[in-house]
């Protein structure tokens, strides 16, 4: 009896209070979940969205560090200038080549390496650890290292190429306008193979061994097993790693800045290194931001494409 009395009394009191300040009370109740999540949301907005918005706004303003009077809104002027910018057009073309060749070679060698490391052999543990070593080298250090190796004064590579008859003279490939891009690409491939090898090896090891045995009993040879078991299993991983790497490499200017600085004659300038040049050499942050916005839009379109492709692959599986 006592308990029931208390319960009905509390109900009475609370309904009475609700009647006295209904709007405030309802507002408090409605905002409760938002208040709880507010700290996290504010943090994310402050850390992620605010800088993006700020950078985005630079693209529509005249921001030059050397001109204290700059900073005014200029609309689409930067983008108009971009359309006629020959260096930008070349950088865009170079970016396609740089990202395409780097990713294709990294993926091919990474896949081969993963397939090799997936077979048991004596000392595999040590070899695996060694293979993943380049990944641990700072990109800037590996850029310097490769630049020196391509340098005929201190590096062996030009002499080897000459000895093999591939070049007419032991010249620095990095100063050859037609082939300079291959220098950073080779350094990038060396540096990026482990990423593909690690991720693809992990995916390979998740494939049940039974399937290969069943297929070998069914009469499939090594190539047929690869085609009908390995590839379908790897496809989603391949799609996502290629997406990640392409976006990342298209944005990745370290090696180029260290090895060639975009030269000779902008032959190795990619969009990312062009942004770097505009922002930190010419100190034109507004124009650099406009280029960055274009790159962002292109990469987002590309990412969307790959995600759609992956979805359809997963749906088929």
């Amino acid at each position: 009896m006592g308990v029931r009395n208390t319960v009905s009394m509390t109900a009475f009191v609370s309904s009475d209070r609700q009647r006295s300040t209904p709007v405030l009370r309802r507002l408090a109740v409605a905002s409760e979940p938002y208040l709880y999540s507010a700290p996290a949301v504010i943090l994310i907005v402050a850390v992620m969205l605010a800088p993006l918005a700020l950078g985005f706004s630079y693209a529509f303003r005249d921001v030059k560090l050397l001109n204290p009077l700059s900073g005014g809104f200029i609309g689409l002027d930067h983008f108009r200038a971009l359309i006629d910018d020959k260096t930008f057009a070349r950088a865009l073309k170079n970016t396609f080549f740089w990202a395409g060749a780097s990713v294709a070679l990294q993926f091919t060698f990474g896949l081969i390496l993963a397939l090799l490391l997936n077979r048991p052999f004596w000392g595999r543990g040590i070899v695996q650890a060694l293979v993943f070593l380049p990944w641990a080298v700072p990109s800037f250090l590996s850029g310097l290292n490769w630049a020196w190796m391509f340098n005929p004064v201190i590096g062996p590579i030009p002499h080897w190429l000459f000895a093999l008859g591939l070049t007419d003279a032991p010249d620095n490939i990095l100063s050859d306008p037609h082939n300079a891009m291959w220098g950073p690409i080779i350094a990038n491939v060396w540096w990026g193979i482990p990423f593909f090898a690690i991720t693809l090896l992990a995916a390979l090891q998740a494939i049940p061994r039974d399937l290969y045995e069943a297929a070998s009993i069914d009469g499939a040879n090594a190539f047929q097993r690869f085609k009908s078991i390995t590839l379908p299993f790897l496809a989603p991983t391949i799609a996502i790693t290629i997406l990640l790497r392409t976006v990342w490499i298209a944005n990745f200017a370290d090696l180029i800045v260290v090895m060639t600085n975009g030269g000779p004659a902008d032959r190795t300038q990619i969009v990312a290194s062009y942004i770097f040049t505009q922002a930190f050499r010419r100190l034109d942050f507004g124009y650099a931001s406009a280029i960055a916005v274009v790159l962002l839009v292109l990469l987002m379109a590309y990412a969307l494409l790959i995600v759609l492709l992956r979805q359809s692959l997963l749906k088929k599986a």
Partner: protein
Amino acid sequence: MASIDITDIRKNYGAIPVLHGVDLTIRDGEFVVLVGPSGCGKSTLLRMIAGLEDITAGEIQIGGIRVNDLQPKDRDIAMVFQSYALYPHMTVAGNMSYSLRLRRAAKQVIAGKVASAAAILGLDTLLERRPRALSGGQRQRVAMGRAIVRAPKAFLFDEPLSNLDARLRETMRGEIKRLHQSLGATSIYVTHDQIEAMTLADRIVAMNAGLVQQVGSPLDLYDRPANLFVAGFIGSPAMNMLGGTYRAADAAFVAHDNSVVPLGRAYGCADGAAVTLGIRPEHVVVGGAGGHVTAPVDLVEPTGFGTILHLRALGTDLKAFTLERKTAQVGETTSVALPPDRLHLFDAAGSRLS
């Protein structure tokens, strides 16, 4: 269809031998079950027949052809895996037709064979599904369908029912047996489940520790186990094993607690030799007149189908199985008889005495 001859097959993993010389002949159309506890080498033997494991020594012939050095695909066998090993990216029809497509069979031939296998297994309506949209039993059927379409010389089953729940396992067991009756294919079936072995096999090969313990029909193994391992492995609830000695004077067994069980006849064994007496729980007679000993009831396990009584008798925990709904109470004392014609006697090394 073909016979399979296995001659002195051995297998070592590095320095560790896992098969110590197995001889076995499987007749054309026979259903042979390899049974034993895990690690006994039964799966290794099956995989050696399939060509998935190298043969350390010995010879395997399928249909009179030595296959030691042939690739799995050239041995003309089909295998059903415990995990089913279905290709997840192919439909049911794709899974079943994969081997035929690899052999570049004509489209109509493939369609016909897949359709007839699907009809046998009741998969007609599932042909366009992918494995992950199937239940465990359906996947198992697809795995068998993949084997059937090939019409191979022999079917190899590697614990195919172990991943199914108990009810489904019973159903599929029946289906496999029916399938074998209609196809008459030479089959080797590996399992650790003695019930599967008993119900499916024409002949059982009981294995332990890399050696064949006994080969024979299911009832052979049940009624006349060659040694203690087979006696203990086949049958559920397991056979009672009593330690004691043989008394030649009156052909009797003397248990550790000195109680005497008359054996009914003389066995080829020295007086006073240490022996093990075996009797199946369903053969122990509880209650009634003429019991050898009286024993208190220790534990009562009703199974619905019958009752398992645990008795403290002959210096051990003696199990008795009866179809009657025993109303015996724990602590009650009852008389126990061990009929001489139901007794098995094993020597100290574990071999059956005659």
